């Protein structure tokens, strides 16, 4: 069964450093998403991406965040200058259309020290 994959599973970084989180969406999916989940809290939408551009973004997705689809399979989330409060689980998801089910990857646990 096809699934969304994410790397790395864990990332530890120093405050102020840049991190890139990677995702491989399900191959025939066209919409891609990033969500985050701070420990003990609910999952929060960050951004959606379609046709090589951002489709929607939340208030959380400020100028320190960016997304990219550098090739035909990867979808990345970059955090330019990490802050302590960026520590969270980051989930990638994909769907065939914006109205269909979003399937989630296993997540990357980011810890900013």
């Amino acid at each position: 069964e096809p699934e969304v994959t994410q790397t790395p599973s864990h990332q530890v970084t120093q405050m102020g450093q840049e991190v890139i989180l990677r995702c491989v969406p399900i191959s025939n999916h066209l919409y891609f998403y990033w969500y985050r989940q701070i420990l003990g809290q609910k999952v929060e939408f960050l951004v959606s991406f379609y046709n090589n551009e951002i489709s929607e973004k939340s208030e959380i997705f400020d100028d320190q965040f960016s997304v990219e689809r550098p090739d035909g399979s990867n979808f990345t989330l970059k955090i330019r200058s990490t802050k302590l409060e960026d520590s969270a689980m980051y989930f990638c998801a994909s769907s065939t259309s914006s109205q269909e089910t979003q399937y989630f990857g296993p997540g990357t646990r980011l810890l900013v020290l």
Partner: protein
Amino acid sequence: GESVGLHLPTLSVQEGDNSIINCAYSNSASDYFIWYKQESGKGPQFIIDIRSNMDKRQGQRVTVLLNKTVKHLSLQIAATQPGDSAVYFCAEKGMDSGGGADGLTFGKGTHLIIQP
């Protein structure tokens, strides 16, 4: 503001019993609702969904009920098994929701514990 929330943070049931997990939503414009299961250290796993033109949908051992009048969603799990132990999230989607037209708005989650 718009939000999706769950009534109970923890639900404990005996193995073999039926479970009912509830969810209230406040955005009347929501038209798509999903239940996800999240096991420790894993991502949300799709269980079942329902659109606003329906009030009931059944899957394998699971049933989702939607009451648009009171903006309430529930997930029924029949004959619970140890593998059902997880956190269950409801999520909603629709125009003008907190997540925009594409993003899902999640509730806080209910931790379902299956007692042997």
